[in-house]
């Protein structure tokens, strides 16, 4: 599933994938794959991305539909 929340947050900040990758300590390809929903990042990487984008884990990685039975 595509992570549009992450992509929109990055775009809101006017940040490129390369810049976010540098801040999170990964390659641009990894950021691209996470946004495209083709790679599941570890919790540590999720936290690094959230710190770089100034948001919480819930803001980027939680969908309201997850809580429904």
């Amino acid at each position, binding site marked *: 599933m595509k992570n549009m929340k992450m*992509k929109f947050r990055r*775009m809101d900040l006017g940040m*490129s*994938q*390369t810049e976010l990758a540098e801040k999170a300590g990964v*390659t*641009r*390809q990894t950021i*691209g794959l996470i946004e495209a929903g083709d790679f599941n990042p570890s919790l540590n990487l999720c936290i690094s991305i959230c710190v770089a984008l100034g948001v919480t884990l819930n803001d980027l990685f939680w969908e309201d539909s997850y809580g429904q039975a």
Partner: protein
Amino acid sequence: MDKRNQLDERQEQIVLKIEHNGCWFAFWALLVALIVEQFIFGFDFKYIAGEWIIFMILAVYLCSACLKNGIWDRHLKANGKTNLIVSAVAAVAFGVVMAVGSAVRYPGHLTGSLAGGLISAVCVFVLIFVCLSILARSYRKRQQEMEQEPEDE
């Protein structure tokens, strides 16, 4: 047989680690076996052809798969200095093996064994340095392709 993955994430990571260790053990053990058989015991190539083919397939697969994914190495950087050091280490190791192997098989010809080892080392150095330089260039090209920023819609 159930085709679904029976392992959870933690178990999957452990299995990958086990397979990683097994792969590298097979790689280095095959290399040592080939060196001992050919250069120490002087086996004819036809007796070690099977091992050699498997070793080369494994080496080519590891190289090409990493290059395709824009990966060079965990610890080493793809630059001239690294290529020089790696080539020199491999050349010295190969030269020593050749010289020792030759001295064991032809006792009494120490000068010839040393000369053979030296010539082999120089040839291996040139060969490995050229190969590494070509591979490093391909890696950098691939890395540039993969790191190109896509346009945000």
